């Protein structure tokens, strides 16, 4: 099987997504996230090249600038300020969850043909496999990690998966919508980052599994 360039890039993004699962070192996580998003921006640019769609170039540039650069930089600053370098412990050991992620990539390949409406559309199979695998990686990250910052990264990875799905399956949503989404994600990360400072200040940890004061 020969992969098209953008398909290879999408797979690369999926693999970086799985690598995020492989370490509990937060700064390494963010570096992988940054590479993962760069690959996704490259997919966008490559598809823009194929479809000659000028607005996709703009989206690719914005994705690269905001999601691969500004957000990891901001989160890195947050990590440095609160002085927590590693996730205090995952519910599933990091290497195990990485292998689980690889397994889910295989599963994504199997179910990518089962999406109703996309059946009989083999052109888009690799793209949707990669997107779904990224989605699964993000969900796995959110479910298995304790540190609040990993939850934010998990959310970002999920969002990337959805974005990649949109780009590979529909060649990008309207420009205004894409830009609005990017802005929204940026603001969400900023708000979550500010909350993180306060969590660290009042609880002296950022372990979300210990946030269980509120119940019926």
């Amino acid at each position, binding site marked *: 099987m020969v992969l098209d360039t953008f398909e290879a890039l999408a797979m690369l993004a999926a693999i970086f997504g799985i690598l995020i699962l492989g370490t509990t070192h937060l700064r390494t996580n963010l570096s992988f996230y940054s590479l993962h998003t760069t690959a996704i921006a490259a997919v966008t640019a490559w598809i823009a090249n194929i479809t000659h769609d000028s607005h996709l170039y703009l989206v690719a540039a914005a994705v690269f600038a905001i999601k691969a650069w500004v957000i990891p930089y901001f989160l890195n600053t947050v990590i440095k300020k609160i002085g927590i370098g590693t996730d205090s412990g995952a519910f599933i050991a990091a290497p195990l969850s990485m292998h689980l992620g690889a397994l889910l990539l295989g599963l994504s390949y199997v179910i990518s043909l089962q*999406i*109703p*409406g*996309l059946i009989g*559309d083999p052109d888009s199979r690799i793209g949707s496999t990669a997107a779904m695998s990224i*989605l699964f990686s993000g969900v796995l990250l*959110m479910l298995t990690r304790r540190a*609040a910052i990993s*939850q934010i990264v*998990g*959310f970002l990875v*999920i*969002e990337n998966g*959805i974005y990649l*799905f*949109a780009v590979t*399956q*529909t060649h990008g*949503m*309207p420009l*205004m*919508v894409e830009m*609005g*989404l990017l802005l*929204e994600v940026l*603001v*969400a990360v900023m*708000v*979550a980052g500010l*909350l993180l400072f*306060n*969590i660290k200040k*009042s*609880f002296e940890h950022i372990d*979300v599994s210990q*946030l269980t*004061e*509120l119940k*019926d």
Partner: protein
Amino acid sequence: MNELLYLMILPAALALISLFLEVKLTRKLVPIVTWWQLAIVAFVLHPCLQGTERMQFASGLAIDKMGTYFILLTTFVVSCCVTHADYFFAAAEAAGDAYADRSLRLFYASVNLFLLAMTTVFLCDNLGYLWIAIEATTLSSAPLVYFERNKFALEATWKYLIVCSVGIAFALLGTVFIFAASQRGTPMEPTLNISELITHAQLLNFPLLRLGFIFCLIGYGTKAGIFPLHTWLPDAHAESPAPASAMLSGALLNCALFGIWKVASIINAAQPHSHVHQLVAVLGTVTVVAASLLLLRQHNFKRLWAYSSVENVGLMVFAIGLGSGPLFFLQALNHSLAKVALFLLTGNIIQASGTKKLNKMHGVIEDCPIWAGLLALAAFAVTGAPPFGAFVAEMSMLSLSMSDGRWILALIMTAAIAISFVAILAHVGKVIFGSGKQGFKSFQPARASIIPAILVLGTLVLGVGLNTEVWSGSWSVIR
């Protein structure tokens, strides 16, 4: 385009001004301007109220009759809440735990951004914009939940932000599926424009559309608090200050449900009697049943009302599942009126008695008869007892569901509504009766009762004035 500016300029300007203005002035200014905003909204959108089908403002921004009703309701709720907030903060000052000026500035700025975001939700005629607006309501209301600045508020805010953002990410995936549905199997340009999607609904790729709808239902359903995705809701409602809880319950939940309604109307146009609607109705029933059982054992006064909101969300989802726009709006309207009154009254009582625990509250009737009376009336109103408006809505819903042949759902629903009625009245009875212990005089009970009294009166008038036939009969689907 000009109309759009009129609708949005005041909240936007107030959000900015309230960051700098003297707090004492902001507390008076914001209510006045928000009531003025209500008048402007009514003036700008009056063609829609008088029968114009829809008003187009710009590409992807339009409003129809349903949206107009909701926008008026939302602005009204926010106006009531900010008016009462002035009293709420004054009472906190009198009780000796005044809030810092910085917190209040942030509160008023967030309230206005929140109003702006909610106004935008109802103006969206594009699924992408709708998603952006609904996520913006989450982000702008997070500071409201964090208002108390303690550990509990922090935990509630974190859960609210993460659960809602991730939940709503699935709605984005659903939106992408619907976009793909408009691209595949049709000759038309791919679009996210809701009215175009409705017009060409028959041409869309139905399996993809259905998949998209289910993801949107899960996503917006998380934001609306459908069981079992409601986990953020009681925490956020219980930990935010009373005026903010009232806005979350009376305005924010409607926005998310409006999102579900919009997507449902696309699928309704594509295939009027699909199984998807059955799924929605079942989901609504499950939510009502779960909430009514959870209502039985509550220990916190505000969590009680939060679970009652979950129950009402279930009823509204049920109305959407029946495909009845008017009933959805009628239920939303009555729920908003009664629940805002309840949250504001509860806030007063909590401030005066100094506890949120249900087992430590009793004898409000001795301490303050007005509050006790209004609390009882509002509690009756929210449980759907006659002669209040919610009774009309719930009766029509049940009879519509019966006539559709969904009598099993209707029976389960009736039982669940009865359970929640008993549960709520038992809890409220304990709060009202018994021996009083606190002097509430310093809390200006009369001034604190104005807004709740207006709201309770509103839902009473609706209940007496509405004719059940009209709501379940011919006028059954508006888009």
